[in-house]
């Protein structure tokens, strides 16, 4: 069952062009939505589809739409700031099928009475941004975007905006600050963006993948979408598999298969005769899974959550038995330390100290007390080290940095101890 990748798989060289898009049924959902069923029905279909946001938080999109306050103007912002380590699905959707997203944007804007939409793409994605801008230009020329779309009197402008290289802008309120020409610092919530978002106006922020599903949902109905896969993980979703895996790449899957199937069948298993040691089920912010406990856990949003991790952005990072997991954890902690926006003390200071303590251990200067010290710093960022993590900060970036540390200590503490006990030879 393929929804998002069917066109790009069938038409490898031109799936991104408007000619191919229209020739394969593209913009038919727009006519159906705008001319036949109308705005309220579009929103009702998306709600009925039970699609949960694909950016990482997995919040039901139709419910989010329902929170949009009535004040005008309202805005739609597409989050294409894909930066969670391990995630590269939105890049493919933007490059290979930008019109699918644009049709979803127009339908969403029409359903919600919005006349200006923004597609915020991370700065390091110039090629996806070029393709998306080109597709937006084509859609303007064809009259799908602009004034009086399909003679309905509905107007919509779409602006493609490039970021500046900050992971934190994937957090929706930081993204809105960035789009307002500010530092990408997350806002205190409430108020949520649906009430006071861009320029303090009601704003819906949805992920690229989420909105790319809207044309299919309008064409086939929300019930049809909801009937795909397990009840609370409806529809297909993109997973990005990387690391020590034979067949890395993006896969559009129906949720519900086991991790064993995903890693060893879909991903083709572990290369070079190595064994699986651990994997991250949903981006580097997610606690790790290990073969002894989780291979037969189903790949669904709720099952992964029940086992103390998250499906997040669908990024699966596989680590084999050759992996130095202390170094791997350090590498993830370093990421959060670099990307912390600096607003909240526990995150700004905590991630910095986690990185420094790891540096000490990796340089051979570690002490056994560093294990407790690492966990103590994690406890300072996210008290109790629970899942889902407790928050001392405005956004989840700080708590995310604790996931690799806690996972390392939970499953591989012996490796940390061995590393600390290693004799350092000088000279």
């Amino acid at each position, binding site marked *: 069952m393929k929804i998002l990748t069917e066109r790009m798989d069938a038409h*490898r*060289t*031109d799936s991104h062009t408007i000619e191919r898009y229209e020739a394969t049924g593209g913009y038919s959902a727009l006519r159906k939505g705008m001319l036949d069923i109308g705005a309220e029905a579009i929103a009702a279909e998306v709600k009925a589809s039970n699609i949960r946001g694909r950016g990482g938080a997995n919040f039901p999109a139709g419910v989010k739409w329902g929170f949009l306050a009535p004040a005008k*103007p309202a805005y739609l912002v597409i989050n294409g700031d*894909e*930066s*969670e*380590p*391990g995630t*590269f699905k*939105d*890049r*493919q959707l933007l*490059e*290979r099928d930008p019109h699918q997203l644009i049709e979803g944007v127009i339908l969403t804007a029409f359903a919600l009475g919005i006349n*200006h939409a923004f597609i915020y793409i*991370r*700065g*390091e*994605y*110039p090629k996806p*941004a*070029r*393709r998306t*801008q080109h597709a937006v230009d084509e859609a303007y020329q064809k009259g799908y975007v602009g004034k009086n779309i399909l003679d309905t009197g509905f107007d919509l*402008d779409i*602006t*493609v*905006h*490039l*970021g*500046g*290289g*900050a*992971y934190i802008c994937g957090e929706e309120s930081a993204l809105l600050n960035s789009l*307002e*020409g*500010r*530092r*990408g610092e997350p806002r205190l919530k409430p108020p949520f963006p649906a009430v006071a978002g861009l*320029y303090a106006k009601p704003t819906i922020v949805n992920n690229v993948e989420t909105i790319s599903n809207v044309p299919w949902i309008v064409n086939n109905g929300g019930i049809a979408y909801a009937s795909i896969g397990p009840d609370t993980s409806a529809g297909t979703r993109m997973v*990005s*598999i*990387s*690391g020590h895996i034979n067949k*890395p*790449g*993006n896969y559009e899957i129906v949720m519900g298969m086991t991790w064993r199937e995903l890693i060893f069948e879909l991903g083709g298993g572990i290369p070079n005769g190595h064994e699986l040691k651990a994997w991250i089920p949903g981006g*580097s912010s997610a606690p790790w899974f290990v073969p002894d406990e989780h291979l037969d856990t189903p790949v669904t949003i709720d099952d992964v959550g029940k086992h103390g991790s998250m499906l997040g952005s669908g*990024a699966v*990072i596989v*680590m084999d038995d050759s*992996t130095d997991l202390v*170094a*791997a954890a350090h*590498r*993830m902690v370093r*990421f959060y330390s*670099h990307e912390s*926006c600096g607003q909240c003390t526990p995150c700004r200071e905590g991630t910095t100290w986690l990185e420094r303590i790891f540096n000490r251990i990796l340089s051979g200067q570690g002490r056994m007390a560093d294990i407790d010290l690492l966990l103590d710093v994690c406890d300072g960022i996210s008290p109790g080290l629970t899942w889902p993590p407790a928050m001392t900060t405005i956004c989840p970036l700080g708590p995310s940095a604790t996931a690799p540390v806690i996972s390392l200590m939970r499953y591989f503490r012996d490796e940390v101890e061995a590393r600390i006990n290693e004799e350092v030879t000088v000279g």
Partner: protein
Amino acid sequence: MKDVVLSAEESAAIGSWTAESQGLALEILGKYPKKRSAVMPLLYVSMIENGYVTNEGMKAVSILTGLTAAQVQAVASFYSMYKREELGDYLVSVCTSISCFLLGADDVLAAIEDESGVPDGETGAAGKFSVEHVECNGACGGAPVVLVNYEMIEGVTPDKGRELVKWLRDGGPDVVSTEEMQQLFGGERAFDWGIKELEGAFLPIPAFGPYGSAKGAS
């Protein structure tokens, strides 16, 4: 999209910019309901004019957007792609986040530092190269990943990294493009990219048409 008319003060602020950049500034301002949203795109245009984010560039952007120079500096200093000092012709960025790390990115970075003679985070005296390690670039299925002026190459080995540096040093194209470099120095990709695209970067700024930073590659 609305038509924008600049005041005398605003026109004067970008009076030294090329006609092309001035036109881009008007177009960019017309794309946003409020001027302040144009800060990030305009900073990129100022980098085309000045090579990096200069005090004069920030001042000009502040006048165009109705902000103070300090507010613009607050933005420029937050995002890692707004470089505050002069760069080499080629900004070589090596991803060393987790998936690239697992597949040997540190060795790729070491090879590029060694071959170029430019340490991580610095610009060489000859002005040819800037070398940096960067956080995840969203091509983890094609790890390890290297960017030249933000044009991506996937599946780079240490040897290919050295060849890339030599190729850039011994001439190197005016416009770098993913397609050309991927063919010469890349390995397996995260996914099939479809047709060749003939645009690329002529400066260490993401090559994006509306910001004037993309050009046709040969």
